[in-house]
């Protein structure tokens, strides 16, 4: 988890994360461009991508490959959306990557959400059996698979997203299909409550 305040801090964190010198320089440039381009996104997704609304996903602190992949899928019309296709189409691939680079180095903010304690408990057990393989550390870590962070994501948004995935409206869900086919919709609902109940920093 990165924390940064202001452009310089964000760039140095991006640098630390990026590795070799040339890659670091490109990364810093992308974050700088991304900061400028990202401002209008925050009107819906919250300041630095930390959503304040149940319906809107948090994108600040989400992993870069997932952000960039989602934006390109919206642009190409391969992921269904109400507004994001019309938005993503306005940017070049380089700009979409810069947006992803900027949001990826913001903190993933996890304020308390209203969840059902029974579902959270049941969800944890299911998560450990079926989902932890890819959504590591209660959904807070993606160091192994390139699956998105789920811990602290907005519950209402995840529920809506899951309906989309289960209905086969996203063609990238294949990677997760095995796990989802083995459990009931109630089980899935319970795991989402478990993810939504996660607060604070990565332990």
């Amino acid at each position, binding site marked *: 988890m990165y924390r940064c*305040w*202001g*452009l310089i801090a964000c760039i140095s964190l991006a640098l630390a994360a990026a590795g070799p010198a040339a890659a670091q320089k490109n990364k810093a440039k992308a974050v700088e461009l991304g*900061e*400028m*381009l990202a*401002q*209008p996104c*925050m*009107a*819906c*997704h*919250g*300041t630095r991508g930390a*959503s*304040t*609304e*149940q*319906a*809107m996903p948090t994108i600040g602190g989400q992993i870069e490959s997932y952000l960039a992949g989602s934006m390109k899928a919206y642009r190409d019309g391969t992921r269904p959306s*109400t*507004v994001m296709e*019309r*938005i*993503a*189409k*306005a*940017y070049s691939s380089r700009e979409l990557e810069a947006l992803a680079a900027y949001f990826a180095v913001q903190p993933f903010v996890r304020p308390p959400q209203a969840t059902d304690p029974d579902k959270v408990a049941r969800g944890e057990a299911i998560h450990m059996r079926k989902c932890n393989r890819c959504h590591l550390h209660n959904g807070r870590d993606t160091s192994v698979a390139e699956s998105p962070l789920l811990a602290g994501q907005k519950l209402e948004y995840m529920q809506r997203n899951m309906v989309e995935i289960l209905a086969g409206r996203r063609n990238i869900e294949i990677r997760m299909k095995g796990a989802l086919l083995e459990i009931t919709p109630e089980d899935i609902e319970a795991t989402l409550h478990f993810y939504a109940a996660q607060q604070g920093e990565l332990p």
Partner: protein
Amino acid sequence: MNGAGRRRFLKAAGALAGLPLITPLLRAAELLPPKGPRVVVVGGGFAGAVAAKTLRMASRDLDVVLVERNRSYTALPGANWVIGGSRRIGENRLNYDRLESNYGITMVYGEALAVDVAAKNVVLEAGTLAYDHVVVAPGIGFRSDAIEGYVPAETPELFPHAWTSGEEIVALKRRLEDMKDGGLVAVSLPLPPYRCPQAAYERISQIAWYLKQAKPRSKIVVLDANPGIAVLAELFGRGWERDYKGLIEYRGGQAVTKIDAARSRLVTAAETLRADVVNLIPPQIAGALAQRSGLVGADQRWCAVDHTTYESAVASGVHVIGDAVLTAGMQKSASTANAQGKACALAIAGLLGGRKPRPNIYSDVGYSLLNDREGASAIAFYRGEGRQTVPLERGGGASPDWSELEGVYARAWLGSMIAEMST
């Protein structure tokens, strides 16, 4: 400012009815000694509040002062839904306490009388605030002289515009509640550019939704100075046809030129109309502060700016954002104001840090609700090119149809916008 410019400023400032003569104030004492490079933002609306916050996020070394006349702000977006009954006005109210505590912005509550460009300070009744950069975000004023018989101090009581604060919409709603079933509502719209034309068509939809539930024998006549629906025309047309057929009568190209408010009459070139409730939205100009400070351009109405830094075309170190800005084509909206506020703040932080500002891309996302559930959006993208905003060739556009899902996101957008400017 040169001698002539300064005289013009003093004249503009002093000429204002009801304001104390400005000359002695120019010598008034500094209210707050600057704690570092200082940016004073005037106006805590959708443009100014987010600009102040973004400045502090970009650089903690900046001394950011936000001047606002009111201690609380009632947002206009979503306030139309109060008429339809799907929102309470309290949900639109905010204050600035958390901007102070979370971001270290200094709030000064009071009326900014003028920006003194030569002295580089903002003049308030109590004293002055020196600045390195000033951001002027005063919203709109009305061109009441455009309508014969319009008296700024009286007419809005009789013919509410409900166009400068969410609170005014509660008064408009009360009128509709008091009206008999079978009554006539007239809504008069000016020619663009004015504050958020899309909101005007949403207003009509929300009045229609209310009447359909509560007073189904009533009717709305729309007198639009524009020849046709100016934004989301196809969707509003389709939605009105589907839900409000016979309830809304739309008349394009009908500018109200004269009124008799006491007898509840509106006059256009074609007709004289008497209505039970009149929602008269007058033609508009940049807010009074921009007029008083000599910041309006050749058109005498709006402030010309550079669309990279939002620096005024007529005064250096002075930036103007929000509805007061002259933009060709770009809708005056909270969404635009928010985008401009942030771009301007980053440009100023960059300039103070010795970085060269770079042209930016702006988007305007306008959501509207047709009834209590269904929403749609219009999205437009622009890039700044000197004093112009140029529409992008790609991206943007309107929703394919009204949908409940966009209704959900319309409410989320509003919640997020209010949180952005106040937390």
